[in-house]
């Protein structure tokens, strides 16, 4: 089914609203994306007609709810081409997914002096959990260098690998420079030395074609709310061989096998990792996000976003007060920038007056910003509903910044 962008955009109720009297130009997608009507309605319907806690009761509502919930797991398994549904674990967000790995993998496999290899591009979500481990276990974190273009070359990673390296944890697509990491190459490199690779797929999953069996990574963390899905849900993909040996993470109802006063046994994955009442409605709602993405087609999303990105870069580069952060060859739909003499927060405020929503700050990447010699930047990040007209408004709003600040 072919859909033009206007039709697609019309499925997002948020765009019917005015922001400061203007049409909303939403360019904060790397932060969180808007939700199509099908997702919103699915959640309402679930609460209105099908709600029950899942997996724990035998009554009809519980059976239906459980099936709907588990259906999302199947859809996700298929969407990312995991080998089995047991490899899909629902978490609260991608941050929790990475914490889960750092905590359980760390507990079992990381000792004093062991090395964790990350990059200077990482989001705090893919650094702070490893930092905890560093403190707890006396491990060492090594940062693969990023160059001026905002790229981390495979060589930079290669040269940091030692026989102390226990895990490599890297972003799929930088949420600041847009750089797309050559995951496959890194995985190949790592698997020679039997080092597992965790991929922070927060920006990968919504914008790239992802296939776990092709990528070959051991762990992949996903943020469903950036995939046109509900808040409160993340996904951890993990190879079954890891889930079979790693300890449980949070303890509670639903993740146990047998509980006695002196001992407790646990079932296999994913049950072992899903403690307590889950985000039932949100996971059910997320099934519609996956369907939505499949209906539009990830290839089409990629192609469309590429077109808008290129147009955006072209337009913004025309303004010589603007500095674009990074210039990676292989780039996803993110443009971070600064304007000479204007602080990013002031940019964001001025743009907001025109209905243009962007993000200003360090985007949870302080290491990278420091490296780039700046404290903050403005960031425009694209979604399927963005158009060239959005870019035009963005460009003219940037000019307005110049005018307000006389730069």
């Amino acid at each position: 089914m072919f859909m033009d962008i206007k039709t697609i955009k019309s499925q997002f109720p948020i765009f019917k609203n005015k922001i400061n009297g203007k049409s909303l130009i939403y360019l904060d997608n790397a932060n969180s994306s808007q939700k199509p009507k099908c997702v919103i309605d699915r959640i309402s319907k679930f609460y209105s007609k099908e709600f029950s806690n899942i997996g724990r009761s035998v009554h009809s509502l519980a059976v239906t709810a459980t099936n709907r919930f588990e259906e999302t797991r199947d859809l996700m398994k298929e969407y990312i081409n995991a080998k089995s549904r047991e490899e899909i674990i629902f978490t609260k967000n991608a941050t929790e997914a990475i914490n889960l790995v750092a905590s359980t993998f760390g507990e079992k496999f990381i000792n004093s002096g062991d090395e964790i290899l990350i990059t200077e591009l990482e989001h705090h979500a893919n650094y702070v959990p490893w930092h905890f481990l560093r403190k707890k276990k006396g491990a060492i974190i090594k940062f693969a260098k990023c160059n001026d273009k905002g790229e981390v070359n495979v060589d930079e990673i290669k040269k940091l690998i030692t026989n102390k390296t226990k895990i490599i944890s890297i972003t799929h697509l930088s949420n600041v420079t847009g750089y797309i990491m050559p995951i496959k190459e890194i995985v190949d490199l790592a698997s020679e030395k039997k080092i597992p690779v965790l991929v922070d797929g927060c920006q990968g999953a919504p914008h790239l074609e992802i296939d776990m069996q092709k990528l070959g990574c051991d762990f992949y963390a996903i943020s469903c709310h950036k995939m046109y899905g509900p808040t409160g849900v993340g996904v951890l993909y993990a190879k079954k061989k890891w889930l079979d040996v790693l300890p449980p993470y949070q303890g509670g109802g639903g993740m146990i096998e047998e509980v006695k006063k002196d001992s407790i046994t646990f079932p296999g994955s994913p049950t072992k990792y899903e403690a307590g009442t889950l985000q039932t409605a949100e996971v059910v709602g997320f099934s519609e996000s996956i369907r939505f993405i499949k209906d539009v087609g990830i290839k089409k999303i990629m192609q469309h976003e590429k077109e808008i990105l290129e147009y955006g870069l072209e337009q913004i580069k025309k303004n010589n007060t603007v500095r674009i952060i990074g210039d990676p060859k292989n780039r996803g739909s993110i443009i971070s920038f600064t304007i000479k003499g204007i602080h990013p927060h002031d940019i964001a405020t001025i743009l907001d007056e025109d209905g243009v929503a962007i993000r200003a700050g360090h985007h949870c990447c302080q290491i990278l910003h420091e490296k780039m010699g700046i404290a903050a930047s403005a960031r425009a990040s694209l979604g399927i509903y963005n158009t060239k007209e959005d870019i035009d408004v963005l460009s003219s709003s940037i000019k307005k910044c110049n005018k307000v600040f006389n730069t």
Partner: protein
Amino acid sequence: MDIKELYQEIVLDHGKNPRNKKKCHGFNKDAKGHNPLCGDKVHVFVKLDKEKKVEDISFEGEGCAISMASASIMTETIKGKEFNVAKKILENFLNMLKEGSKMSINSLTEDENTTMMSLSGVKRFPMRVKCATLAWHTFIHAAEGKEETAVTE
């Protein structure tokens, strides 16, 4: 449909007075099964001879009427049959529970067929299918010498 179709007389009878609920003499294979959702538990004991014929089979455990009846019916049905035949019966049984087809395997006597068919009501109760299949999966685990507890998921 009436709830009586699930709890047919034969099922209730096997549920209340399960056959072969003991450790059978001279078993050489055994395995435990567990349904974590309900807490149903079975322990299946099998005496396989050299030709992989089920010389004797029994079980211990506790659980709902469906799981106990199913275990009881299984032991009655399988005893004396080849392992491969038992596996075919299980396949047939699973099809019946999932797709609502009839038991159609000719290695069953008419009586055995009727008894197995008494569990057919389960198919309308998806949450209970696991109760009905737990003992069977556990039997396969035992016969194939798998180490882990059989878990219905």
